[in-house]
């Protein structure tokens, strides 16, 4: 994604897309939880009741609810205003027949119980104040449902009172209070669990996406850069993912630019090497042809000198270009754990004929055990080549090369020694510096160390691993 796309992506973020809005919504639900849930459950309850009502009359609830019965009883009491005892008896009997499961009785102005339907033994014949109080106490808000009304529906008329009792189970809407509480409790806990589940889901999804992002960031591909993430949502984490993708893109671009530059530099150096070495080859070919001619002794030695200088020049070009490539920072060594003694042996095998030709005494004494260092094999060979070359070029007078390993604390060191006139004397040789500069650079890049111990009697180069203590 390009920068402008990222900006567009950022601009396009809306409140509804944001995690904040979703979090606020959950908080709102939590705050409004009670206020909303209570009426809601009531509503559900109401519908539930309505649904079950129709079936109730069939299932043995033949009487209306408490309110209707109370209203009916008071209406009847009002209608009986001023009637005689006989008339009241008749009227109540009729009512009792309408509500056959009920108990009906009335007490006249002299506190005497009159009609009792059906015949009830627990009702006193004559009511005193204590009886009335205990009756009222016993049946207020109790089962059976009880309605007491003054005849004429007014206490001060002194016409007595009439009582209507009906078991609550036969009345509509007469569920016991306990049922109601259980229903509300269950409804509330369902909603509470729902709320917890939603919150948990919200956070677990955030957590999962963060973990996905983390694992994407820490899992690099072959090129060492993590893969971009597929964008799914446009919230804050989505923006983070977009920013991450953008960062990866920039990394890849810069990596590509770097590789292009490295390629370009390599190309340039290859061309330079070609352009410089081709004329040298031509010169050499003519020298070779000349050598076949009849020449004076001086002519032959001149040719030999020229030939040597051509080799020096070729080496110098090589070193110069390598140094340029290496120090440009555009070159990466590929370090691998290798047995360096094996590389040393192979290097020595390649140089051995040269040493023999120069009549060197060769003293090679390497340990049998492998010496594993993390090196770039090709460039480690280059270190050895440069050191060996230096000896052949500049320590020829010593006619000696020694290569051996020495035990040190924490591992072995490789020593390469000659019996030349020492490094200072070799400074007259042009081009020695660049070869050693390459050695120095490569040694440091491979996290190795080297020491040079040079005197007039010879030079010893000591190569060892960085973590090795000095003698």
């Amino acid at each position: 994604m390009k920068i402008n796309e990222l900006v567009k992506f950022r601009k396009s973020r809306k409140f509804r897309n944001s995690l904040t809005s979703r979090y606020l919504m959950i908080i709102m639900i939590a705050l409004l939880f009670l206020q909303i849930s209570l009426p809601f459950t009531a509503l559900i309850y109401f519908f539930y009741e309505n649904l079950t009502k129709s079936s109730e009359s069939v299932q043995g609830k033949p009487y209306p609810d408490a309110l209707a019965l109370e209203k009916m009883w008071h209406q009847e009491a009002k209608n009986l205003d001023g009637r005689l005892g006989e008339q009241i008896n008749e009227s109540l009997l009729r009512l009792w027949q309408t509500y056959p499961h009920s108990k009906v009785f009335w007490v006249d102005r002299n506190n005497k119980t009159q009609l009792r339907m059906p015949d009830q033994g627990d009702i006193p014949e004559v009511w005193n104040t204590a009886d009335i109080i205990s009756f009222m106490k016993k049946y207020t808000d109790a089962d059976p449902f009880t309605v007491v009304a003054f005849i004429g529906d007014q206490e001060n008329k002194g016409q007595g009172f009439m009582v209507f009792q009906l078991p609550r189970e036969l009345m509509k809407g007469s569920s016991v209070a306990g049922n109601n509480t259980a229903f509300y409790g269950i409804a509330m806990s369902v909603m509470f669990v729902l709320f917890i589940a939603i919150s948990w889901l919200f956070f677990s999804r955030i957590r999962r996406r963060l973990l996905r992002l983390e694992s994407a960031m820490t899992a690099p591909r072959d090129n060492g850069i993590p893969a971009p993430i597929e964008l799914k949502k446009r919230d804050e984490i989505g923006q983070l993912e977009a920013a991450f993708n953008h960062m990866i893109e920039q990394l890849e671009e810069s990596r590509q630019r770097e590789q292009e530059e490295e390629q370009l530099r390599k190309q340039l150096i290859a061309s330079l090497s070609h352009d410089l070495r081709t004329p040298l080859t031509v010169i050499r070919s003519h020298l070779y042809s000349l050598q076949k001619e009849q020449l004076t002794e001086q002519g032959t030695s001149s040719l030999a000198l020229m030939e040597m200088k051509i080799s020096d020049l070729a080496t110098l070009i090589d070193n110069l270009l390598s140094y340029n490539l290496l120090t440009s920072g555009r070159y990466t060594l590929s370090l691998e754990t290798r047995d360096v003694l094996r590389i040393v042996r192979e290097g020595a095998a390649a140089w051995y004929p040269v040493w023999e030709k120069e009549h060197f005494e060769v003293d090679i004494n390497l340990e049998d055990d492998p010496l594993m260092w993390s090196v770039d094999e090709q460039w480690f060979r280059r270190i050895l080549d440069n050191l060996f070359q230096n000896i052949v070029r500049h320590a020829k007078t010593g006619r000696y090369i020694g290569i051996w390993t020495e035990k040190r604390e924490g591992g072995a060191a490789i020593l390469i020694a000659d019996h030349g006139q020492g490094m200072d004397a070799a400074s007259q040789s042009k081009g020695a510096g660049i070869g050693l500069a390459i050695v120095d650079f490569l040694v440091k890049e491979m996290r190795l160390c080297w020491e040079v111990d040079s005197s007039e009697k010879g030079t010893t180069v000591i190569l060892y691993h960085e973590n090795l203590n000095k003698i």
Partner: protein
Amino acid sequence: MNITTILYIEDDHEIGSWVTKDLAERGYEVVWLTSGEEAVDKAAGSQLAILDVMLPGLDGFTIGQRLKKAYPSMPILMLSARTSIDDKLQGLQFADDYLTKPFHPDELAARVEVLLRRFFAHVSEPTELKHLLVYENENRIVNRLSGEEIILTGKQFQIFSYLIRNLGQILTKEQIYESVWGETYLEGDKTLMVHIRYLREKLEQDPASPEIIETVRGVGYRVRK
């Protein structure tokens, strides 16, 4: 013995004519091309190819890969003024040797000889080594002094012919072991030393001071002419 034909691709006329002349003097027939376009067609009948890298048109690496594909058994020697490690590594992915300019014609000739020996042991004449006559194609070694044939075991012969194929070169014990046994050499393994000792007992006139298989102390072994 048939004349060996070498395909040589070089765009620089001075170098090209010089190398062609030098190789011809050494008894090779040289087919010299200045560009690689026709390389694959012209390579028919050549036993070896010497390629420059920087060429007009197709570069030496591309030509080399095409040649290797068309003639897998033809050794290829890259002869280049490009000396960087990357170039050498790229070249050696398909080529069998990589020589950098400026080179000495003797070195070029020596490398050509090694390559031909490595690839066409069957066309070469018996190799004379001191008192030995080695018929590599027949797996036969004869003592010239006594006229007796020397019988080697399979492994002994493999080691000896590997050394002969790389005549004059020092080979490390790792190189010999890995070439003959085809396994990674484990440090401290004495198998090779034991084999060399038995080999010397059969080949050398005086196994105590060997002349055929030379020990290069600290490095490896070598068989010289």
